[in-house]
């Protein structure tokens, strides 16, 4: 028996939905591959340096674990609040959705502030060692990623404010959350590969 039906004009005219979500998943996959490329170079160079001289982080630098750990926990808490956003939007609960989005955004901004503060404390000069160059490249790329995620979330909140039924925006919020979770995953890897392992 025929196992497909194509060609009727009605069937052909029906577009598949969730375009925004699919587009965001693809963009997220590309972004993650960018970080895979960065981490690949970082870990390769780190292994090479440790094998050669036993040193990777320059001796004058003081990379403490307190700020990155705080930022990592903040990011992980934002997973819960972001899921709260999606949950509220799906149930057409505008108030909780906006509160949750605000808290999530606050977590994101606080990670940016924590990272910026850490830059002032590390004593790591960007162009004096390969480790510094790579750490700043990865960390700054992640800050840019957080900014994009915040803008994405802001746009979705703005759209939600303009309509009666925010549940119509569920796909958009799910898309924003997918990108946000990727931001969190990348930070967890940064925390582990750069700050815990040093």
């Amino acid at each position, binding site marked *: 028996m025929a196992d497909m039906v*194509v060609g009727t004009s009605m069937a052909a*005219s029906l577009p598949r939905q969730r375009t925004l979500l699919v587009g965001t998943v693809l963009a997220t996959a590309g972004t993650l*591959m960018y970080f895979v*490329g960065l981490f690949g170079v970082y870990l390769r160079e780190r292994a090479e340096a440790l094998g050669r001289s036993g040193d990777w982080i320059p001796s004058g630098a003081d990379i403490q674990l307190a700020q990155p750990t705080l930022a990592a926990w903040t990011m992980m808490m934002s997973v819960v609040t972001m899921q709260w956003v999606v949950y509220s939007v799906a149930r057409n609960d505008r108030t909780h959705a906006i509160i949750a989005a605000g808290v999530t955004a606050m977590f994101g901004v606080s990670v940016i502030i924590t990272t910026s503060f850490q830059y002032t404390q590390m004593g790591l000069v960007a162009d004096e*060692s390969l480790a510094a160059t790579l750490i700043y*490249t990865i960390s700054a790329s992640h800050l840019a990623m957080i900014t994009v995620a915040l803008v994405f979330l802001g746009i979705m909140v703005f759209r939600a404010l303009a*309509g009666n039924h925010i549940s119509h925006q569920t796909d958009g919020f799910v898309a924003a959350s997918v990108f946000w979770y990727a931001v969190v995953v990348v930070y967890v890897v940064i925390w582990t590969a750069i700050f815990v392992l040093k």
Partner: protein
Amino acid sequence: MTIVDTRSETELPQTSGPQPSQAQLVVSELTPSTDLAGILSSSHHQVIGRLYVLCALGLSGLGLGLGLLMNLEKVDLDAGLGIFGNTNELFQVFALYRTTLIMCGLVPLLLGLATAVIPKQLRTVTVAYPRAAAAAFWTWLIGAITHIVATFSYGGLGSLQAGAAREQSVELTLLSLGVVALGLLVGSGVILATLITQRPAGMDLLQMPAFSWSMMVATTVWLFSLPVLLANLVISWVDMRGATALRFGTADAPFEHVAWAFDVPQVYAWALPLLGIVAEVLISAHRSRPKLFEPMVFIVGAFGFLSFGAWAQSFFDSAEPSALDAHVVSNEVVFVVFALGIAGVVLAFGIWLAFNVVSAEQRPIISPQFGLAVLSGALLTAAVTVGVLRVAGSALGVLREADSNLWPGFFDAMDDLAGSSLVTGMMNLVVLAGLLAAVAGIFHWAPRLLGRRLNASLGFLAVVMLGGGAMLYGFTDVLGGFFDQPDRFFVVGSFAVANLDAVDALGFVEALNVIGLVGVVAVLGGLALVVLNVVMSLVSPADLDVADDPSVVDDGDGLTADMSVDGQER
């Protein structure tokens, strides 16, 4: 309070005369603009496709022109012909040749074809994100032009000697190549999103037309490899921005850092859609439909998997590898397995295609696209065969570990191939196979892409020039490799080959380079004929409707030859 996002009818401006119907408005939005302002600001998939095709053909010509200049230099391996001011300029063109031919020529050409054709294959009105598609095109074009200009402003992807290139220009070259990669990335994402979300109900992923499926696999591989290239470029750029470059921004490191994109296995990924084009062109030339479609789906998928090469970054090869050379990418088992696997996959594809052609039981319609598709398949087969030779030294190294005295002359020869001009020859074969397939696609889908068929006489002339030229140009570097012509035929401060004594039969190799020169001139001529043909068709009024489109054989049930299956028993 209720917030509405459309104005009420009373607020709309009232005009006298008959108002256009909703259907007329929709048609006007979906009709490609023909005036200049409309074309430049259009997000119509057909217009964007045309722009991609025209610009990419032009930039492919520029890339081949750079190849011509380098071949001129290789005509005299003793001292060069002095085309370039110094060897740093030659190195910059050596790198620009690769980036232009692949990033500014082949990949955008295939993306343009896909942007124009895929919505029609899927019977949807446009791509998933039309404005993103337009943004991707302009991002790519601006990046490509900036990249070329920056290289010619004493920039390029580094230089043979530290400080020989202008630092700001090198930074701009890196940045602009990043912009090119970003544009291609967005364009790939648009095509992939279109294929996932815009298929008609009832058509699953395994039932897409062959070209659509090959684009799906290709854009997936590109989506996973272009960001890695971008990461390489960002690291080099950041390193250069410091007071002193430490590693990734020094001398020729920026090029070496991204060289994986122009070598096996990644180079195959850039030309991957040729499988779909060749399949569609050859099968429809036999007035047939694909049979045993599922094996083809898996073959193309396997080709995509095996051609992903972002992991094969030889830049990180250890300077002092261990006894087993385990830290040298080209000596790793997976590197060899991928190259051998690709050859097997292409062989399987050839068998599948032969089965379809034989079972069609009809003589093919001889057309320019038919000739180009056959030539493209032949070039790809040759390229993967050369790719096997490229890794043969490493593959046979296992035997040498067991007995170091085993056929020393043969093993040394195989080892030498990895650093010879065979590497560039293989890249040329793959890129030319992709270009020929893309041109075949332009001829095949001309009614959809351009609104009318292309001139067949000019087309046949282009086939002769492109095919003949590609054979001459592609194979001469490969043959030169067997006579130990090095891939980098220049050294710091000298146009001469580093060790002329190592080159066997120098006169013969130089003669081969002259033949290669003739070949690249012929390819350039063929490309110019294709551009002329496309421009002629664009300035002529459209004279075809879909019913005249040879690529659309509507047999009454709404199905077309583009459809992967015939709707009957499978």
